[in-house]
């Protein structure tokens, strides 16, 4: 190697290079940069290709309820509403179920049962969404018209969210199917996090005289809080962007209704449904603008969820100090 060793700095750089440290740093940095770059490119493409509706409708796009390809009038509100409502319903069902199951698997179940169940849960996470959609059509939709409907409508029918007739498809059906889809994510991630809580945390709690459940609920779960929240974010992201299963059971009708039994529509579903046959620039670009809206919505909801965690964690630690 001619010239090597002339400068001390370069020598150490070269030796680092030989050790592989620098190379590894460079390569991993490139990979990390690629992820950021792809995100930026995505937003740029969505922004550039939605110029027409942005100029024509402006901020009205967010509050207009009409979606009329014939009159070339487009608004995002019913789709935003459907996306948010179905995701919230899904999380309301999936979070307690998922976290409860993960606590059982990580803390209470014998390891053999826990591992076997985990295997099936991982399988569930890998099932394609169209399969969940089919299950939704054949199992949830009939139930929504009969059992679930009368179970909710008769006692709670005075509440606006449980009013009105049920066609089987609608916000609640989509929310239930989404919940079934995201539960494996919550369980899988939460279980791993709970299992990685150091043993001495549990032992310390037990040594202080707490019962097993108290050590689990008051020590282990709060310790794993951040990780569990991470699993909920993953579930929320999946629910917001889910397309196929939602479009099969939501009713695909761009209307805003208070009742969870009413049919609705979601952003991802309308893009998937109408993009291929969209004729005319404004129509196509309005669908791309919807994609941008979904991006913003995901961003905002994620931020809100994070804020919620920051607030609750502070409260939690404050209690702990007392």
């Amino acid at each position, binding site marked *: 190697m001619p010239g090597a060793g002339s400068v001390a700095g370069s020598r150490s750089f070269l030796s680092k290079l030989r050790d592989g440290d620098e190379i590894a740093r460079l390569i991993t940095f490139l990979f990390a940069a690629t992820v950021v770059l792809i995100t930026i490119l995505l937003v740029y493409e969505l922004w550039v290709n939605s110029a027409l509706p942005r100029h024509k409708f402006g901020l009205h796009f967010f509050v207009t309820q009409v979606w009329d*390809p014939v009159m070339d009038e487009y608004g995002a509100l019913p789709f935003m509403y459907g996306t948010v409502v179905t995701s919230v319903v899904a999380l309301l069902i999936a979070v307690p179920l998922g976290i409860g199951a993960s606590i059982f698997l990580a803390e209470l179940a014998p390891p053999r049962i826990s591992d076997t169940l985990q295997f099936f849960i991982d399988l569930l996470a890998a099932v394609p969404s169209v399969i969940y959609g089919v299950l939704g059509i054949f199992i949830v939709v009939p139930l929504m*018209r009969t059992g679930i409907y009368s179970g909710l409508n008769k006692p709670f029918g005075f509440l606006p969210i449980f009013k009105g007739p049920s066609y089987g498809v609608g916000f609640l059906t989509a929310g239930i199917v989404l919940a079934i889809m995201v539960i494996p994510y919550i369980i899988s991630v939460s279980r791993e996090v709970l299992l990685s809580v150091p043993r001495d945390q549990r032992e310390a709690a037990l040594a202080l005289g707490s019962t097993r459940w108290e050590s689990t609920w008051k020590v282990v779960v709060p310790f794993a809080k951040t990780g569990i929240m991470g699993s909920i974010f993953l579930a929320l992201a999946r629910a917001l962007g889910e397309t196929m299963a939602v479009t099969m059971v939501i*009713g695909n009708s761009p209307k805003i209704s208070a009742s969870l039994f009413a049919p609705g529509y979601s952003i991802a579903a309308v893009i998937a449904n109408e993009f291929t046959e969209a004729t005319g620039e404004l129509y196509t670009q309005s669908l791309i603008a919807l994609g941008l809206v979904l991006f913003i919505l995901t961003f905002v909801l994620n931020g809100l969820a994070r804020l919620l965690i920051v607030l609750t964690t502070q409260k939690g630690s404050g209690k702990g100090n007392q």
Partner: protein
Amino acid sequence: MKRTTVLLAAVLAFGILLWAENALLINGAGATFPSPIYSKWFDVYQQKNANIHFNYQSVGSGAGIKQTTDGTVDFGASDMPLTDEQLSAYQAKRGSALLHFPTVLGAVVPTYNVQGVSAALNFTPDALAGIFLGKITKWNDAAIAKANKGVNLPAQDIVVIHRSDGSGTTFIWTDYLSKVSDEWKNKVSKATSVNWPVGLGGKSNEGVTGLVKQTPYSIGYVELTYAVQNNIPYGTVKNSSGNFVKADLASVTAAAAAAANVMPDDFRVSITNAPGKTAYPIASFTWLLIPAKIQEAGKRDAIKSFLKWMLEDGQAYNEQLTYAKLPKEVVAKELKAISKVQ
């Protein structure tokens, strides 16, 4: 070392394969409805002309029109004729005209799920328009009952099911409703997706059929081909001569034959609500979109000879795939039009 050799050999073999495949590749994209018959045609045609390869992507009419206009494919396909604006956009971008060639016929039928009714229901244009406008809300409404004497229709709410995805089927259906109902024309009009006054949306023919089967007292519309292949019961529709006609290949071809006399030179014609005693009123052509100017001589000759073959021999494959044949008059007119491709 051994693995490298194997890898090298594989790459070489692939290269040779590509070299040997020195065939003329013609790309097309567009409508999904005729894609089974197109695949069949291209397959048979390739067996006869080994050096020509057609690659057709059924991405939807809208995407097909866009790709043809952008020049990323050699030809397009659409379930609806292009509008004047779309044609002038093509003219502006590509500097030549785009020609329509009808290939096969499709029809759309009303399908329903009314418990206790087993007979095929008759639908008048007014009843269909009223139901889909949300003005006729009960199955025992006089507009439906009048055309179905002796059928015991229940006093239940009608649930309307429509397509949620943009589709040529929706275009034909709304084109028909626009012709028979002024209110529909003014309020909703025709397109591949419209702002539906009422109802639930199902994705594709399967989605609509699934919803209709699952929802008691519902009514939807599906492609005739799909209904026949899946044994889905469907109703008859009253045509412009006042007869209730059940859609089948013969009644669809009859609708086209009636329209053949008034066929414009550019073949952009709607045959919904066509005249003729036996004509089924909710039918349409589907078109290949061929550029009037094709620079490459090889491609031009291949496309022209395919068009000729499709019109003369290819039509024989239609009925086994449940597509209605083109009427003779239309075939004759199209054969003459092939010379416009230059």
